[in-house]
């Protein structure tokens, strides 16, 4: 008797795994896939990406679609779990049969999904930060956000201009912080930088005064750089002011480039510098700036649709989607291989992150000019005039 029950149980389990729905595939639509961390610890990145993609796909469809076809967007939420992301990637490729993918919120989930898209020969435009995504270059993998290496270079460039060469690092031990720290250490010699203090903190630590005191007491520190994202840098910034270290120039990374950082750090954020995309200072850009039109339009559209302040993270999704859409238009085809070739030929694309010029050896296509050096003054972002 019991064995019969066992049998029923197992069939039920089997039926459950089979019972997943199979989407209809109409002739006049093309499917674009996305896996984002809409919930979980990286939701502050994934949520604006999700909203941006939905907003603009609706806009594109309302305007008649791409190459005569409407776009059907398939978005899955990996909750920040790389293993789940991998499964959803397989689902997009095998079950939904998407022609391209714009997504991958974190470096961890992107790295886990890369083999799926490489094997299936489907273009994958990642929204993750680290340089490993595109270095070494993989045939079908592209990305839109600036790399952490570029952020280090931009900061060092600014330091060099100010004749500061001895720096202290205080980095988060999360993926972003650890990866950027490694890149900073690597490129420091190219700019004549000497790292005299190298401290770190856990992503959920609530006080960093011990590490900062150590940096403060290190002889000859001329500037401090904080690779990290999330709430950690805000606490570091507050502690920095509490310890009266304001006389030492302090640099944050592009990882804190959202208004909530200024809110969290409060008055302590005054005078902090960071490299960030033009999007944050859209209204302060001179009219001659080629990015001005794109960033002000995106900011206006996003803020009026979501009633939330714009962040650079959603901007990365905007760039990814439109690089793909332009490539589809040029290819005038829904063939994944042809679209990939056209993405690689992207030249002079003006996005929120910068001006993109891709090539067979560069699947990011941004240079240091894509980053603007900003300084926080009066609770707002301000462009640092070159030479100051």
């Amino acid at each position, binding site marked *: 008797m019991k064995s019969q029950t066992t049998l029923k*149980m197992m069939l039920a389990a089997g039926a459950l795994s*089979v019972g997943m729905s199979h989407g209809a595939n109409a002739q006049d639509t093309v499917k674009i896939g996305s896996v984002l961390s809409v919930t979980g610890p990286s939701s502050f990145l994934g949520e604006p990406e999700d909203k941006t993609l939905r907003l603009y796909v609706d806009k594109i469809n309302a305007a008649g679609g791409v190459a005569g076809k409407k776009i059907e967007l398939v978005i899955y939420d990996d909750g920040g779990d790389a293993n789940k992301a991998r*499964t959803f990637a397989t689902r997009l490729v095998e079950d939904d049969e998407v022609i391209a993918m714009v997504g991958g919120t974190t470096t961890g989930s992107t790295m886990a999904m890369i083999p799926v898209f490489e094997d299936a020969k489907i273009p994958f435009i990642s929204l993750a930060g680290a340089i490993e995504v595109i270095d070494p270059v993989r045939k079908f993998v592209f990305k839109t956000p600036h790399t952490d290496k570029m952020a280090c270079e931009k900061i060092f460039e600014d330091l060099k201009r100010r004749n500061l060469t001895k720096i202290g690092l205080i980095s988060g031990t999360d993926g972003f912080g650890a990866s950027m720290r490694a890149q900073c250490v690597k490129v420091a010699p190219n700019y004549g930088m000497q790292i005299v203090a190298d401290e770190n903190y856990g992503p959920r630590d609530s006080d960093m005064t011990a590490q900062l005191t150590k940096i403060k007491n290190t002889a000859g520190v001329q500037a401090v750089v904080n690779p990290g994202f999330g709430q950690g840098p805000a606490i570091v910034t507050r502690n920095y002011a509490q310890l009266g270290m304001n006389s030492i120039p302090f640099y944050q990374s592009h990882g804190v480039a959202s208004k909530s950082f200024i809110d969290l750090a409060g008055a302590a954020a005054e005078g902090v510098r960071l490299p960030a995309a033009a999007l944050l200072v859209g209204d302060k850009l001179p009219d001659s700036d080629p990015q001005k039109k794109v960033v002000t339009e995106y900011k206006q559209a996003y803020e009026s649709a979501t009633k939330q302040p714009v962040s650079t993270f959603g901007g990365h999704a905007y760039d990814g989607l439109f690089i793909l859409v332009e490539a589809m238009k040029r290819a005038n085809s829904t063939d994944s291989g042809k679209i990939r070739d056209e993405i690689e030929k992207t030249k002079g694309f003006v996005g929120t992150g910068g001006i993109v010029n891709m090539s067979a050896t560069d699947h990011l296509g941004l240079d240091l000019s894509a980053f603007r050096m900003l300084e926080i003054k009066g609770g707002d972002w301000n462009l640092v005039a070159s030479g100051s």
Partner: protein
Amino acid sequence: MGALLNQRFVTLAVLAAVIAVLPLVFPSSYYFRVASLVWVSALAAIGLNILMGQAGQVSLGHAAFFGIGAYAVAIGPTHLGIPPWAALLIGAVLSAVLAYLVGRPILRLKGHYLAIATLGLGVLIALVISTESRWTGGPDGMPVERLTLFGWRVSGSYTWYWVTGALLLVGTWIALNLDETPTGRAFRALHDSEVAAQVVGVDVARFKLQAFVIAAVYASIAGSALAFMNGFINPDQAGFLHSVELVTIVVLGGLGSVVGSIVGAAVLVTLPQALTVFHEYEHLLLGLIIIVSMIFMRNGIVPSLSGLFLRRARS
């Protein structure tokens, strides 16, 4: 005894049949991937069930052993040049040794104290994995070399479906058999009452340790299998949330029921996939389903439902 043996064979035969038949109804390799994930989670859960359901001890840090298995096959071939299959064995041995060494002192603890001690162990291992970035690639994880056996490169969802399915069959067979050995009976005695077990001459400390080591080896092998299958591994797999997921599978499926662990894994792995149609309500529904099934099936899905069927059949 003959009937019992028979029942074990039937369970195993049904499982083998399910594994063999499912591919006939799978429309794409995505389904193979999901099923392989079920087999891997079930394997780890069956091991944990030996510790929790049979020996009655709690482990809230079990993903640590899963992580050790996974990182053994990632680090071994990449940094030390060890063949992948050997790295899998080394991972299992490492997990067993660690479980043995750590288990000796912490299994003296009971109830909440044991739960906290295992939790601490789990957090510690996860911390080491995400900070030793020179070896483990840090929080972003690291790639894993493909498994090659006698020149055969094991890759693709389809192949891994059969490999993990076979692993699950072996794991199930061992767990079912263990139930009927003197060791298994000692575990049950432990589960019912430690004092009584001690009185009738069961070496309580030794058997607890044995169950812990067995559970660690199951988790380690499941971890290695997942790492090979994904070709990529990150510290999440060794983290606290994954430990909780494993405990949930065991409790949801039914403590002490081998089949329960497989059903629990099937539910917990496939449900989030099936619920994606609800978008933002996905997590809400998942939580609700688990709460409701725990309220109405307090002993877990398999023991509760089989009890219900048995009562129906009698009346």
